[in-house]
């Protein structure tokens, strides 16, 4: 299945002929990624009449380019106004926004774009080379293993609440409880829905994200003239192209971080249903644990921005693998791609790589070209994007509220969801004013239902036997790794103290 070099080069050149569809899809992807509620999946659905009328390869390349660019676009509002464009960018503001507030928004954008492009290129090449092996990953990761993967992400709650662990845990567990609203996947019993039919299908994610980040942020910032701090405003005024180059350089300084977090994203992307949100949370958490300066995370620390952005772009190519090899989409966008390809009578499976290489390999080469184009198109724009932050909050806040509220209407077309966004906005505002981390609540809301789904499936298969959680070798290995990652920070501190104690004693 892995292509030889000649075939790959020839496919790459052939894909370049599709520049006329890749460029508009890329621009559109950046825009829809940057607006909460306008995910790539929604946009592809809206444009179905267009994609269905195209040749299968053209349609696939269009969808792949749009999807790829939207992943990168989601980081823009996450950094500049603390509003992740999609759930996959939910970990980006943790360090991106503090950088922006301190006047380093342009640099943060450059880091985000460079890390995204580098991660996208690395993982797309890796995906092309490792397709036969990566396609097996999904077979080995069942409900039990996925429970542990989810717990890796959820353990981030404890990390980001380092300033006040008790408050962080309350926020995180509150988020998990909110995530359990709705009918369960096995018995479909409605739970905690307040009698609203609209909540039977779980708490809608985009309104929760809009409320916790955008609405609450808008209520907070109105007491300031701009989002920027005083020093940040001065810095922003004098910014030229320097911060962009600085951002590019900073990313390459952290090249190891880019590589391993993007590959982590690739592996998580291969698992159907896991997605970019879990990848970015897990990457952020693991990056912090392995860091020599974990205390700097959450304060505008560069690796804290590099890790989630690399991971969520690593997911992009991973999502395509189970779709093309076994016909199982790795996420919502891949599911829509499957619908379009099935409409054209495309049969998924290993044979696809021989029978229709322009669709199978072409999806990856289109992704490579999109990432190169993204790098060329978007990096020069960092200077202008960052100007958003000097817009006075009296104008910014009303526009943010209006457009993000209506953005939360888009996925399901329920006005109810706009109300949900306001409720989450009030909760988010209270949380911000009283020192509870809104990201901890959001992690619970995003990962809670996923964790429960896998947990219920595991218990259903084992007929209620809890020992199933420790029944597989891979699962047990992951449990040990989880335990080690939880104990590592304390252990590192202890060893550090021991070391400094010994040094003092020697002196």
């Amino acid at each position: 299945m892995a292509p030889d070099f000649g075939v790959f080069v020839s496919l790459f050149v052939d894909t370049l002929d599709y520049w006329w569809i890749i460029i508009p899809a890329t621009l559109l992807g950046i825009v829809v990624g940057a607006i909460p509620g306008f995910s790539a999946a929604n946009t592809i659905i809206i444009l179905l009449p267009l994609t269905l009328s195209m040749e299968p390869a053209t349609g696939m390349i269009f969808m792949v380019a749009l999807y790829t660019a939207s992943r990168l676009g989601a980081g823009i509002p996450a950094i500049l106004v603390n509003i992740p464009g999609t759930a996959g960018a939910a970990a980006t503001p943790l360090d991106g926004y503090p950088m922006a507030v301190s006047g380093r928004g342009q640099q943060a954008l450059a880091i985000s774009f460079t890390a995204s492009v580098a991660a996208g290129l690395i993982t797309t090449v890796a995906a092309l080379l490792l397709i036969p092996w990566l396609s097996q990953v999904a077979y080995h990761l069942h409900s039990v293993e996925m429970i542990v993967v989810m717990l890796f992400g959820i353990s981030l709650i404890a990390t980001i609440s380092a300033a006040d662990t008790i408050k962080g845990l309350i926020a995180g567990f509150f988020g998990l409880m909110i995530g359990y609203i709705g009918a369960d996947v096995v018995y479909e019993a409605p739970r905690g829905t307040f009698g609203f039919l609209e909540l039977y299908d779980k708490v809608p994610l985009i309104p929760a994200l809009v409320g916790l980040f955008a609405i609450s942020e808008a209520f907070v910032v109105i007491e300031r003239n701009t989002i920027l701090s005083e020093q940040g405003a001065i810095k922003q005024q004098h910014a030229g192209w320097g911060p962009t180059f600085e951002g590019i350089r900073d990313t390459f300084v952290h090249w190891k971080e880019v590589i391993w977090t993007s590959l982590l994203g690739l592996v998580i992307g291969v698992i159907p249903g896991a997605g970019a949100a879990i990848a970015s949370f897990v990457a952020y958490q693991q990056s912090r644990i392995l860091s020599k300066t974990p205390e700097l995370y959450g304060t505008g620390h560069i690796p804290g921005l590099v890790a989630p952005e690399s991971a969520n772009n690593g997911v992009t190519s991973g999502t395509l693998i189970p779709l093309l090899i076994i016909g199982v989409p790795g996420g919502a966008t891949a599911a829509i791609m499957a619908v379009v390809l099935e409409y054209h009578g495309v049969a998924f499976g290993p044979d696809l790589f021989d029978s229709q290489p322009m669709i199978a390999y072409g999806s990856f080469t289109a992704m490579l070209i999109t990432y190169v184009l993204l790098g060329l198109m978007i990096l020069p724009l960092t200077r202008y994007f960052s100007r958003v932050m000097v817009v006075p909050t009296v104008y910014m806040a009303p526009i943010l509220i209006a457009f993000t509220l209506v953005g939360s209407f888009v996925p399901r077309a329920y006005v109810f969801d706009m109300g949900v966004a306001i409720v989450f906005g009030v909760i988010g505002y209270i949380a911000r004013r009283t020192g509870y981390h809104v990201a901890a609540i959001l992690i619970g809301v995003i990962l809670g239902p996923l964790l429960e789904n896998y947990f219920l499936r595991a218990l259903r298969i084992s007929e209620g036997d809890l020992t199933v959680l420790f029944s597989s070798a891979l699962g047990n290995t992951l449990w040990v790794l989880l335990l080690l990652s939880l104990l590592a920070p304390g252990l590192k501190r202890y060893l550090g103290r021991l070391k400094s104690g010994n040094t003092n004693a020697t002196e």
Partner: protein
Amino acid sequence: MQQDPQQEARNILPDCIIPALALGFTIYYLTTITEVPWISQASAIVVSGLLSMAIVAFIIRSVWRIHRHRETLRLQGSLQAMLGYVPTSSRRIGLLALAVAYVWFIESLGFTLTTLIFVFAAIVLLSSLANWRNAAVISISSSVIGYIVFLYFFKTRFPTGPIEDWLKSVL
């Protein structure tokens, strides 16, 4: 560590809102799962147990700190701590009321008109009536750009009303 006598004890009443909300919601949630199979209850029971333990830890810590005069629990000043002082507090409440009204009316008036009114009213509320010209320009341009980009070009599923219906028949 003893409290610095010069330093005023911090009022933690606002800090209790999130734990109170969380606890209230958890109790409500648990009442809704009494009839479902235990497998469907399991996750929520584990998490609600952990949440309760965290809240108990929060209460114990608060009692300890109040006892040490590092924190206090009083109604006075709590509202200001949450909403800020006048005029910021009244602006926040006004903005929330406008946001609720925006959601309330958008289904009947549609995106374009509701956005225009909301953005205009919110800018005037946050600055002053003297700023009405800027408010008018920004509200009209944002709703018109929103219409052109999202409704006209992208055919996005936004709530529509009389203006969108009229424009649809004209364009």
